[in-house]
């Protein structure tokens, strides 16, 4: 079976099937990562933009690196840009209330988790998502986030402290 690195090499020569295979391999993890990062907003657009950037930059991919690290690096950068954008136009509060009332208990739990993640500053949120949900090591997270290992460690520590604080309330 072709490795991810072989496939991205093939994408650089215009191979559509190689891209299809890569999309199939990373569809779930990438989609989940973006969903958790943005709280479920603009997920499909960011997902698509991530892959378009991958295709655009496929020729510049360094085959000595891991494809997954590179892919998540692109996704993290896009999510960062997304968080910097101005917030969307205010919506009708009546609509929000109606939605809230209709939500089920399971959805409430998910919302709590979503609120917890949303309360974290973007750098800490990235670390928590990559570590907790994607089980990545400090080395790989540091590469994805473009910061030293020590920073990853301290961000995780601060995120935990903040989350613990929120759980106490």
């Amino acid at each position, binding site marked *: 079976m*072709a490795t991810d690195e*072989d*496939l991205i*090499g*093939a*994408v*650089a*020569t*215009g*191979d*559509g*099937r*190689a*891209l*299809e*295979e890569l*999309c*199939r391999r990373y*569809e*779930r993890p990438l*989609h*989940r990562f973006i*969903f*958790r990062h943005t709280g*479920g907003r603009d*997920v*499909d657009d960011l*997902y*698509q933009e991530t*892959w*378009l950037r991958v*295709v*655009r930059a*496929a*020729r510049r991919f360094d085959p000595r690196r891991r494809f997954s690290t590179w892919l998540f690096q692109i996704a993290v950068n896009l999510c960062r840009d997304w968080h910097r954008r101005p917030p969307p136009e205010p919506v009708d509060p009546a609509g929000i209330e109606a939605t809230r009332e209709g939500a089920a208990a*399971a959805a409430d*739990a*998910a919302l*709590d*988790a*979503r609120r*917890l*993640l949303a309360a974290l500053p973007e750098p800490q949120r990235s670390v*928590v998502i990559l*570590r*907790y*949900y994607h089980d990545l090591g400090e080395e790989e997270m540091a590469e994805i986030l473009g910061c030293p290992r020590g920073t990853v*460690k*301290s961000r*995780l*520590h601060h995120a*935990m402290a903040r*989350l*613990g604080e*929120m*759980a*106490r309330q």
Partner: protein
Amino acid sequence: MTECDEILATLFLGGVLDADAAAHLSACPRCATEQVHVRRVAELLASHDVPPPASTLSARVLGAAAPLLARHARRAAWRMLARALAAALVPLPLILVLDFYLVRAAYGVLDAVLPRALSLYVVFNYAATLTLLLALTYGMIPIVAERQMRLRREESRA
């Protein structure tokens, strides 16, 4: 990070504590208080279900990427062709010089045994055949290069 932080981080990430860490956890008042919150946070985060992506999402991505892929394919084909032509042109001067001497030698031999007009006719035909073969060989380069690229693609896919 302190020992307490390390232990709480392990708990948060669902790791298993060793005997020393477990002993610390039961003895340390800070860890005893914090672990309840850490476990609560971990439970909450674990309950964060994400709906699966729409079934049309991959098709949408592939559709949007199609023009970019086509551009990559065109560039790759041109690069491959340029490399193949460059490699083929390197021995061309040598081939031409060799052919020239071969034709001249053939003419010299034929001229000694045949009338001049007939020798010229035979040598001209020979030279024309050589030229035709050379043109065909170089003309085949783009076709062979394209085929080789297709084969490489299939190999990498397998």
